[in-house]
């Protein structure tokens, strides 16, 4: 009796210890994250003593080192949005349809082969994709389309699409595959064709997972640095066609940070660009979170 009681308190104690250990671990990762954000704002905000937020965000000229310097990141913001939008136009259909094919159409054996291969694509280092874009795709585009520069908005979007397809495909495939079997069977039993089942049952049932996949894929594209640094061309102007060179925010930060004088205006401006980028990715992630909760499929009755 007493022995059992002793054992019980020991177990409870152990439980408590483990609980606080896990709390500490979670707390550590969150506080590191918080500190990074604090640092980002501390190093970025001083620039707004020199230029107003409006001039910074909507200014058309980025000449951080000339005299007098100009810090307008509007072309960089447009570039980031443009590469993300165009790469999404390519990667979303590719990713989602591949996922549908793998989960619903392909045979089990094929699926077991193809899925790991697609996931392997995600493991390709971005510098390799960037190098491919620079050395293979750029000269190819130049010759085939007879355009002056191969390093442009289109090339960068194409490379980014390569990178986000695996993310989109693999997450939406999981969502589609986890649609309850009885839903599908019920639909087929009512005489619906396979396509009707996919369109009317499978997609609505997994839309929350698919949307999350799409948004995560897009936030990968907007934050990606190496690829856009290597293949986007890097001209800080608002593009007029999809074959114009552009300079997305991460490329600008990566290219200039190393040589910017420490705690100078240029340095602060680059951190402020980082804040803008952070706001963008945060909006993406919050949207993903909202969508996955809002459209969560709970049981078959809400279809």
């Amino acid at each position: 009796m007493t022995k059992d009681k002793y054992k019980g308190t020991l177990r409870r104690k152990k439980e408590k210890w483990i609980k606080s250990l896990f709390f500490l671990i979670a707390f550590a990762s969150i506080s590191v994250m918080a500190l990074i954000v604090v640092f980002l704002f501390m190093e970025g905000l001083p620039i707004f003593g020199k230029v107003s937020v409006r001039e910074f965000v909507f200014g058309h000229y980025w000449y951080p080192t000339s005299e007098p310097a100009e810090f307008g990141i509007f072309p960089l913001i447009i570039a980031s949005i443009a590469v993300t939008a165009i790469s999404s136009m390519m990667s979303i259909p590719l990713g989602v349809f591949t996922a549908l094919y793998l989960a619903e159409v392909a045979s089990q054996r094929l699926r077991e082969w193809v899925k790991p291969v697609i996931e392997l694509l995600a493991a390709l280092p971005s510098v390799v994709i960037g190098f491919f874009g620079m050395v293979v795709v750029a000269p190819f585009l130049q010759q085939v389309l007879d355009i002056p520069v191969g390093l442009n908005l289109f090339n960068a979007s194409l490379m980014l699409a390569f990178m986000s397809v695996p993310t989109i495909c693999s997450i939406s495939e999981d969502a589609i595959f986890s649609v309850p079997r009885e839903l599908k069977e019920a639909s087929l039993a009512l005489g619906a064709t396979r396509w009707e089942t996919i369109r009317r049952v499978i997609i609505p049932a997994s839309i929350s997972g698919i949307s999350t996949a799409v948004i995560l894929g897009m936030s990968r594209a907007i934050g990606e640095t190496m690829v856009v640094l290597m293949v986007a061309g890097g001209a800080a102007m608002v593009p007029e066609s999809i074959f114009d060179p552009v300079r997305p925010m991460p490329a600008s930060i990566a290219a200039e940070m190393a040589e910017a004088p420490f705690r100078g205006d240029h340095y602060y401006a680059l951190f402020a660009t980082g804040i803008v980028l952070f706001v963008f990715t945060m909006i993406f992630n919050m949207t993903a979170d909202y969508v996955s909760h809002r459209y969560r499929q709970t049981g078959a009755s809400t279809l």
Partner: protein
Amino acid sequence: MKAKSLIIISIIAALLFGVSSANAGNLVITGSTTVLPIAQKVAEAYMSQNPDVKISISGGGSGEGIKALIDGTTSIADSSRFIKDSEIKQAVDKGRYPVPFAIAYDCIVPVVHPSNTVVNLTVQQLKGIYKGEIKNWKEIGGPDKKIVVISRDTSSGTYEVWEDKVMNKERVTPAALLQASNGAIVQAVSSNPNAIGYIGIGYADNSVKALMVDRVKASAETALNGTFPIHRALYMFTDGWPKGDTLNFINFMLNPQKGQRYVKEEGFVPLY
């Protein structure tokens, strides 16, 4: 997963701390990526002659190097530009006195695709191209093709020399493509028949064609006698007048028979 990444992080941390403590008392060199190949070659030679001295070298950029010198985390800062007034002020505030040593010269050479028929441009023409006023190769005796202007990111030392010697402080057109390194410019120009870029003379190879400027070919000789218009000095900065191993290394670096030989080997222009 979490436990695994924790283990990895702690291993990385252990390695980092291990390395930094192992270097205590030895030489740390950091800064400009342009100076990096010279520093690396010279440091290797120096270490093979002085096996008891350990030198750790990293790139990161001129600004990074000078920042490290101000913070006291490096013994020598490599820089492809002279130190800025604001940086001197910060250093003095922290009680540090950066001392410059010019260790080599570098020519900045305009380069085009090997198939381009243009062989010579004047500084005025280069300025026109980079301001975006000259847009077609036929305006300067080439084929009827749009000029693709490739420049370096605005904070690189190479860009600053270009801005100073060619642009005369006027702005490079925003339509110019920006590349983050000399190597990337060579790569971009060699794969684009319409492109023009500029690189440090050490990076010029057969995949691109170096242009003459004002009818002068870039070389060690023309850089030293000042006839090639676009050249600069490369520096190493120390905190105060160097002592001990730092002094020995700087002396080695400046010695015509020792360090300066490697400057030449790396394709830069030695001091003598």
